[in-house]
């Protein structure tokens, strides 16, 4: 089986704040890591390979530093890594991101399956997977919680819905986004780290793509625009209570009683 896994590098900490005076965003620490949800997608690919054989390619779009997450994927057992990077991709929204990654996938040739995480912890849209599937003209299933069977030309999976579980058979090639509970991701191995130290990471830029039309990438290829950013609203109808534990507890009890919760 030829499997692509889409992995993204995300900030390690989620501390971004707006400076109330200058209105400038502050981000402390620039450490980064692999999007935790993508670990589940990679683990799913590794299990499938163990069962069916094949080759696992990880693909990531991002700045040159994103090579780190590809190296991490090598340490877990991925066979090939592709970094899609170009200054012309800056400012991409979901549509442009999905198009860019799908162009990268096309460039790398045929495949049976693409696996994505459920969502990223920074973009947090859960939209990139389905949009890529559309661009590649393949069916997709989201929120996959388990794989029941893998056949030669198809697989049977369970999709998690709010009140039901849909059991469906999907033909290859296809795209799945997987839930956190599907498999427990393995830890990166030191032995593999040594073994893959010099393994190449293929870099693709706009020039390598089939579609080189700059208008389809980065900001120019993004239909959504951020018009403004602002700190969250403050509720004006509020009280603050201070005092000793006894006082606060009594005051709270009285208020809950007044509001008829007790």
């Amino acid at each position: 089986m030829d499997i692509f896994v889409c992995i993204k590098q995300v900030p390690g900490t989620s501390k971004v704040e707006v400076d109330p005076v200058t209105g400038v965003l502050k981000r402390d620490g620039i450490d980064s890591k692999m999007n935790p949800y993508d670990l589940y997608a990679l683990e799913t690919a590794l299990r499938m390979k163990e069962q069916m054989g094949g080759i696992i390619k990880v693909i990531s779009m991002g700045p040159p530093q994103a090579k780190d997450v590809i190296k991490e994927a090598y340490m877990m057992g991925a066979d090939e890594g592709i970094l899609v990077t170009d200054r012309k991709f800056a400012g991409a929204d979901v549509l442009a991101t999905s198009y860019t990654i799908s162009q990268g996938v096309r460039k790398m040739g045929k495949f049976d399956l693409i696996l994505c995480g459920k969502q990223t912890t920074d973009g947090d849209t859960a939209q990139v997977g389905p949009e890529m599937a559309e661009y590649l003209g393949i069916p997709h299933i989201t929120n996959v919680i388990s794989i029941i069977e893998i056949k030669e030309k198809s697989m049977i999976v369970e999709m998690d819905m709010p009140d039901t579980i849909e059991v469906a058979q999907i033909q290859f090639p296809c795209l799945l986004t997987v839930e956190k509970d599907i498999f427990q991701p393995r830890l990166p191995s030191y032995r593999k780290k040594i073994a893959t130290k010099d393994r190449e990471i293929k870099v693709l830029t706009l020039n390598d793509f089939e579609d080189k039309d700059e208008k389809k990438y980065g900001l120019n290829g993004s239909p959504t625009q951020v018009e403004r950013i602002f700190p969250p609203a403050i509720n004006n109808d509020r009280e603050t209570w201070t005092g000793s534990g006894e006082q606060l507890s009594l005051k709270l009890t009285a208020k809950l009683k007044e509001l008829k919760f007790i």
Partner: protein
Amino acid sequence: MGQLVCNQDKVNELNIEELIKVCPFGAIEYTDGKIEVNAGCKMCKLCVKKGPVGVMEFIETETKKVNKDLWKGISVYVDHVGGSIHPVTMELIGKARDLAAVVHFPVYCVFIGYHIKEKAEELLQYGVDEIFVYDYEELKDFRIEPYAAALEDFINKVKPSSLLIGATTLGRSLAPRVAARFRTGLTADCTILDMKENTDLVQIRPAFGGNIMAQIICSNTRPQLATVRYKVMNAPEKQFNSKGLITVCEIAKTKLKSNIEVLKVVKKKTEENISDAEVIIAVGRAFKSEKDMTMIEDLAELLHAQIAGTRPLVEAGLIHAKKQIGLSGRTVKPKLIITLGISGAVQFVAGMNNAEHIFAINQDERAPIFNVAHYGIVGDIYEIVPKLINDIKSSVIM
């Protein structure tokens, strides 16, 4: 659209630091004596607005403009499984009516499924002008290709200006598929929606993974797509003299082919769902162990409350993922919520700020949760909660 351009001649040793630091995404690089913007750029344009004057510039370029007059109406996708309509649908109809009123648009629904015509009648009572129904056996279970084909057909026929979709599992699968098909914008999990006179949909959501909100528009393409979670908007009252129409649409069967076969749909055991709770005790990172949780169980029992919490508590395994409130958890709208040891990050607040009465206990008086709470209680939960349990018990006896 446009691009960021750096006026290299205005860069000097004095302002270069400032310029690099103004970018929260570390996307401005200085290499070989040249400033360059790397792929980390999110186009927040802070470098233009707040960076050293005149260094970074945003140059608008010509873009193909859509003729907005050809796109009319606010439509809502009817979210359902096997004909049982998800209540987010009614909430979106309520919002669609508010938005439509600004620009004098009709409100539409698009209903895709099998044997659903009767159900459509019911929906009319929420004040929908026209419901477009696609009723085919191939649409019995949710499969992406036929559902996307039907929605595409609807968009081509009706040309709605905006399309609102519930951020359910199904909606989050269908909306991006269709957005990509029309090469148009889609904003996930909007918490506020508004309408401009020029029919641009104003979409607001927490963004950049931080304590900030972003206002997003999609002014050069149509339709404009947005997903919204359950319990974020308000459902309208039913009206009994509905004058809306039901239009049954036809689509070629060849378009309903699929590479997916649904083998069965299994009903899950019904579980307590925090979205439906009237009273919630929400716990945050101040809770460190299982033992701390027992204290909360007593309190929850006294108040007939469900226990929910923040993401770090889910990550620590102290509460189940289904009990997470927030942007990547569930949205709740209880009559009463008491937050204990929660800082009040936007992603958490986005999931609970529509609660009727919000009480927060936190020892840090500057915690942002106090901007949201109606009653902010500055104190230590380990001191207050045990006393509170006693006080409530004795007040019940009295």
